[in-house]
C-alpha cells in the first residue's frame, strides 16, 4: 500500500510531540516531512532560560537530535521557512523553493514575540526572547556590554533579566503594570517577588511606559526613553511584552484565524479538514495555550485522528504556572485575584518570604497563589480541578495536604534543598539524582512519564509534590497535565466513575460486558483494570455477578499473601483479637508439621505464619481449623479491640464484645481496598481507633464513631461522625458507611481518600440525615454478605481453583 503523506510546518515541541505520538500508534501510515524555520532540531524552548543563566548548555536541551528524524524516516528541512501552501493541489512551498506534497498538513508554527511599535525598535541590540538565536545574542551581548533593559515583567521577561544578571550585566526591568507577573500573581505576591529579585541585584521601573529607543551613530541602541521624559542607558533591549500566535502562514492561505488558527476538538482547522494545528498557534475554544502540558494533550488527540482511529477529543485544559528562577518558588492557578463574590484565606509572612492566598467561591476552591512555599500547589490544583466542596477541610486548607503524617521522604518538602543522594520516593528507593537524570536524559515532561521511567511516586504517591517540583526545575515549564478526568488505565479512556456508573445503570454483570459496552482497546484488559472491574460488578450486583478468579491479584486468588521469595503467609481470623489455648496449640502444631520458618504477631492482634509453601496452603488451613483472616484481600481485615469493661478498671464499655460483633457481622466483606476497624472501651483509646477506617470509642453514655482514619502512608486521624447509644446502632451506622464506600469508592481507594473526595458532609448527609437511606445501605450490605463462603474451606462456592496448589508435568 502506498503511504499517505504528512507534512508538518514548524519543528517545535508541540508538533514533534504529535509526530512522536503518531509514530507510537501508527508507525507506517505516513511518509513524514518536517519544515523548521530555525536551523536546529527540536529543542526544549522552556529551558532557554537555564541556558541563558548558564545552568545548562544548548546541547543539553535538544529533545530530538537530527539522528532521531533519520531513524524514523522523517524528511527534515531545517532553516527553511514555509511561505505558501497550495491547498487545491496540496503542496507546501518554502522560501528557497523546496516543495512537498501532502495528504494531511499539520501547522505547528508556534508563536511570535510581540514587538512594541515604538521608534527605535529596529535598532541593533534590540531583540525579542524566543529562540536559540536570541539567547545567543544575549549571551554574546553580556560579554561586551554593561546595561541591559528588559521590557516586560512577566514570566519570560523576569527569566531573561535573571539570566542576563547572572551573566554579569546590570539589568533594569521595565514593567507597565502595577506589579510583576500580573497575570500569574496578585499584588502582594508580586511585591514579594520584586523585593527578592531586587535583593539579587535586579532594578525595576514599575508603571513606566516606554516611549522610544534611542540609537547611537552606529545604529545601536544606547538608551530607553520613557513617557515622562526620563532616560536610562541601554546597550541591549529585550522585548518580553508577550507573545502572539504565529498565524501569518495560516492567514495567507485562507484559514480562519481568531487569536490563533481556529481548531475543533479534534485539532482540525475548521476551514480545511486536511489541515490540523496544534501548539501555541492554535486557538481551541477561543484559547491559545502557551504551556507544555495542554499542548502535549493536544498532540495526543491530534495523533489519534491522524492515525485514523477517530477517537479522543481535546476539551481544553486548566493551567497553572511556576517561575523558573532558581531559588524562587512561586505558583498560581485558577482565579487567584478573586472578586466581590469570593472569599479569601490569606497567610502572609513577608519577613519569612512566604505568602499564600486561596480564593474560594460557593464553597469551592477557585484559585491559589503561593509564594515562597509551593509544595502544596499540586494539591490545590487538584481541588480546583475537581471542584470539590471544601467546607469540611476549610480549617486545614491553608496548611496543605502534607503534614507530619506523611512518611517515606524524611519530611522533606523543598526539593531544591535536597541533595542528589537524598531519597525522594521511599517506596521504590528513588533519589533526587536518579529522577533528575531520567528527566534530562529521557526528555520527560509529565508526572506520569516520571512514574513510568523511574517508579518515583508510582506506589503510594506521598512524594508526588516533590517529584513535581523536580520536574519543574529540571524540565522547566508546567508539569501538570490536567485532564478533567483520569482514565482507568491505558485500555480505555473511561474513568473509574464512568465504569461504575455504566455497570449500575446498564446492569452489566461480567468484565467482558463492560469491555464491549465501553469499547475497551485491549482484548482482555490488563492487570490494573481487570481486578477493578471484577470488584465493581461483584459489589454492584451481589448474588448475580460471578467472580472471576483470574482477574484477581494472586493474593485473592490463592487466599494467602505472596512473599518476596514466592512463599505465602497465613493469618487465621481471631475474632476481636481473642484466642484460646486450643487454637494456639493447633497453630503451634501446624508450625512444627509444615516447618513454617517465622511466626509473627501482627499489628491487628492476630498471628502471621510466614514462609508457607503454596502446596501446603490447603492443609495448613485445614489443620489450623480457623476461618480465613482475609489478611491478603481488599476486604475487612481485622477489628482490633482493647480489653474493655470486662477486665479493665477504666473500661466504660465492653469493647471486646463490640469488636467481635462487628467482625462477625462484616467479615468476608470485599471492598475497594482493605478495611480495618478498632473498638476502644474508653477515651484512653488503647485500640488506636483514631487511625482506622471505622473507629469506635466507648464513652460512659454510649459509643463515638470515627471514620476515614488511616495509619499507613498518610497518617490521618479519623473524623468524628456521630455518637450512638446502643451496640445495634454501632453495627448499623458502621455497616452503612462501609456499604456506601463499597458502592461508591474507586478501586484501591482507601476510605480516607474516598471521604477526601466526596467530603465528610456528603457522608453525614447519607448516613446521619437520611435514616431510610442508612437502613437501606445496611440491608444491602447484609444481603451481600449473607451466605458468603469462607474461601479456606468452601472452595467451590468461593470459586477457588484448587488446581493452582499443585504443579503439573511431574
Amino acid at each position, binding site marked *: 500500500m502506498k503511504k499517505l503523506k504528512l507534512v508538518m510546518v514548524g519543528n517545535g515541541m508541540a508538533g514533534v510531540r504529535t509526530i512522536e505520538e503518531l509514530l507510537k500508534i501508527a508507525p507506517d501510515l505516513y511518509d513524514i516531512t518536517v519544515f523548521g524555520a530555525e536551523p536546529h532540531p527540536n529543542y526544549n524552548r522552556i529551558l532557554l532560560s537555564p541556558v541563558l543563566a548558564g545552568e545548562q548548555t544548548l546541547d543539553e536541551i535538544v529533545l530530538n537530535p537530527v539522528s532521531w528524524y533519520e531513524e524514523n524516516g522523517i524528511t527534515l528541512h531545517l532553516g527553511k521557512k514555509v511561505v505558501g501552501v497550495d491547498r487545491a493541489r496540496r503542496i507546501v512551498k518554502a522560501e528557497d523553493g523546496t516543495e512537498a506534497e501532502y495528504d494531511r498538513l499539520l501547522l505547528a508554527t508556534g508563536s511570535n514575540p510581540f514587538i512594541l511599535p515604538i521608534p527605535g525598535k529596529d535598532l541593533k541590540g534590540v531583540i525579542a526572547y524566543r529562540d536559540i538565536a536570541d539567547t545567543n545574542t544575549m549571551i554574546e551581548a553580556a560579554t561586551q556590554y554593561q546595561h541591559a533593559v528588559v521590557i516586560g515583567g512577566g514570566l519570560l521577561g523576569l527569566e531573561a533579566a535573571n539570566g542576563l544578571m547572572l551573566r554579569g550585566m546590570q539589568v533594569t526591568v521595565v514593567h507597565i503594570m502595577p506589579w510583576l507577573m500580573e497575570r500569574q500573581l496578585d499584588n502582594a505576591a508580586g511585591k514579594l517577588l520584586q523585593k527578592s529579585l531586587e535583593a539579587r541585584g535586579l532594578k525595576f521601573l514599575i508603571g513606566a511606559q516606554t516611549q522610544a529607543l534611542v540609537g547611537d551613530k552606529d545604529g545601536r541602541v544606547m538608551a530607553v526613553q520613557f513617557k515622562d521624559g526620563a532616560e536610562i542607558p541601554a546597550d541591549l533591549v529585550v522585548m518580553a511584552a508577550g507573545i502572539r500566535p504565529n498565524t501569518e502562514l495560516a492567514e495567507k492561505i485562507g484559514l480562519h484565524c481568531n487569536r490563533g488558527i481556529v481548531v475543533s476538538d479534534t485539532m482540525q482547522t475548521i476551514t480545511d479538514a486536511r489541515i490540523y494545528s496544534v501548539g501555541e498557534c492554535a486557538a481551541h475554544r477561543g484559547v491559545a495555550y502557551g504551556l507544555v502540558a495542554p499542548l502535549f494533550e493536544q498532540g495526543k488527540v491530534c495523533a489519534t485522528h491522524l492515525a485514523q482511529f477517530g477517537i479522543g477529543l481535546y476539551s481544553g485544559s486548566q493551567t497553572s504556572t511556576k517561575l523558573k528562577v532558581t531559588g524562587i518558588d512561586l505558583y498560581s492557578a485558577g482565579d487567584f485575584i478573586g472578586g466581590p463574590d469570593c472569599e479569601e484565606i490569606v497567610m502572609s509572612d513577608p519577613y519569612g518570604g512566604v505568602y499564600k492566598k486561596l480564593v474560594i467561591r460557593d464553597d469551592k476552591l477557585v484559585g491559589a497563589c503561593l509564594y515562597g512555599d509551593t509544595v502544596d500547589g499540586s494539591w490545590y490544583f487538584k481541588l480546583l480541578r475537581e471542584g470539590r466542596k471544601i467546607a469540611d477541610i476549610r480549617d486545614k486548607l491553608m496548611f496543605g495536604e502534607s503534614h507530619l503524617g506523611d512518611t517515606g521522604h524524611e519530611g522533606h518538602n523543598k526539593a531544591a534543598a535536597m541533595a542528589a543522594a537524598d531519597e525522594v520516593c521511599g517506596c521504590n528507593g528513588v533519589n533526587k539524582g536518579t529522577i533528575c537524570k531520567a528527566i534530562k536524559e*529521557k526528555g520527560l515532561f509529565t508526572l506520569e512519564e516520571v512514574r*513510568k*521511567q523511574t517508579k518515583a511516586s508510582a506506589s503510594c504517591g506521598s512524594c508526588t509534590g516533590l517529584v513535581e517540583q523536580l520536574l519543574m526545575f529540571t524540565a522547566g515549564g508546567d508539569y501538570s497535565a490536567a485532564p478533567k478526568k483520569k482514565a482507568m488505565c491505558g485500555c480505555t479512556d473511561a474513568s473509574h466513575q464512568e465504569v461504575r456508573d455504566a455497570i449500575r445503570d446498564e446492569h452489566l454483570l461480567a468484565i467482558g460486558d463492560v469491555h464491549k459496552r465501553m469499547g475497551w482497546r*485491549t*482484548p*482482555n*484488559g*490488563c*492487570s*490494573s483494570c*481487570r*481486578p477493578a472491574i471484577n470488584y465493581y460488578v461483584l459489589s454492584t450486583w451481589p448474588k448475580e455477578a460471578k467472580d472471576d*478468579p*483470574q*482477574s*484477581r*491479584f*494472586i493474593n485473592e*486468588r*490463592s487466599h494467602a499473601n*505472596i512473599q*518476596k*521469595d*514466592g512463599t505465602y503467609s497465613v493469618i487465621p481470623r481471631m475474632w476481636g483479637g481473642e484466642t484460646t489455648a486450643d487454637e494456639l496449640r493447633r497453630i503451634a502444631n501446624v508450625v512444627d508439621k509444615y516447618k513454617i520458618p517465622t511466626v509473627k504477631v501482627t499489628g491487628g492482634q492476630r498471628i502471621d505464619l510466614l514462609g508457607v509453601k503454596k502446596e501446603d496452603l490447603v492443609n495448613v488451613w485445614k489443620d489450623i481449623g480457623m476461618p480465613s483472616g482475609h489478611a491478603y484481600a481488599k476486604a475487612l481485615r481485622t477489628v482490633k479491640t482493647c480489653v474493655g469493661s470486662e477486665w479493665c478498671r477504666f473500661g466504660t464499655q465492653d469493647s471486646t464484645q463490640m469488636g467481635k460483633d462487628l467482625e462477625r457481622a462484616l467479615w468476608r466483606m470485599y471492598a475497594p481496598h482493605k478495611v480495618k476497624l478498632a473498638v476502644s472501651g474508653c477515651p484512653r483509646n488503647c485500640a488506636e481507633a483514631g487511625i482506622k477506617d471505622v473507629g469506635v470509642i466507648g464513652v460512659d453514655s454510649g459509643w463515638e464513631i470515627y471514620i476515614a482514619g488511616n495509619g499507613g502512608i498518610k497518617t490521618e486521624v479519623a473524623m468524628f461522625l456521630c455518637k450512638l447509644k446502643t451496640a445495634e446502632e454501632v453495627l448499623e451506622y458502621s455497616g452503612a458507611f462501609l456499604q456506601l464506600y463499597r458502592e461508591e469508592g474507586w478501586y484501591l481507594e482507601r476510605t480516607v481518600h474516598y471521604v477526601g473526595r466526596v467530603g465528610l458532609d456528603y457522608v453525614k448527609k447519607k448516613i446521619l440525615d437520611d435514616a431510610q437511606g442508612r437502613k437501606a445501605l445496611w440491608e444491602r450490605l447484609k444481603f451481600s454478605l449473607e451466605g458468603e463462603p469462607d474461601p479456606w474451606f468452601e472452595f467451590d462456592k468461593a470459586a477457588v*481453583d484448587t*488446581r*493452582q496448589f499443585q*504443579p*503439573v*508435568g*511431574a
Partner: protein
Amino acid sequence: MSDWKTICRVEDIPVLGARRVARPGSTDVAVFRNAEDKVFALLDRCPHKGGPLSQGIVFGESVACPLHNWTIGLADGCAKAPDQGCTQRFSVKVEGGVVHLDLEELNKSAAEAVRYEATQV
C-alpha cells in the same frame, strides 16, 4: 529431533491463567494460556526480583508479575519498556490438546539456572 515431555492438557491451565511445572533442583517453568487458547512457557522467574510469573495476571499476550507488576511478554519473555530484562523462553508444542515442553531444554536450563543461583549468592 527433539524429545517432547508431556506436561498437561490445555484445559488443565485456566483461561488467562498459568500452571507451574516443578523442576526439582532448579527454577520452575510457568505455562500460560491466554484467551485464544495459545500456550506459552517461560522460566517462572521475573527478570526484576525473581517473582513467580505463574502467579501473575495474564492479559493479551502478557503477564503482570505478582510482586511488582512488571509486564512480561509471554512470547518473548521480555519486560515491557521502560522496564528492562528478559526471562528465559521455553519451546511449547500443543498437539491434540496436550501441552509438551522440550525435554532437552527443561534439563539443560535446569543446570544453567543452578549455576545462575550459585553466582547470585
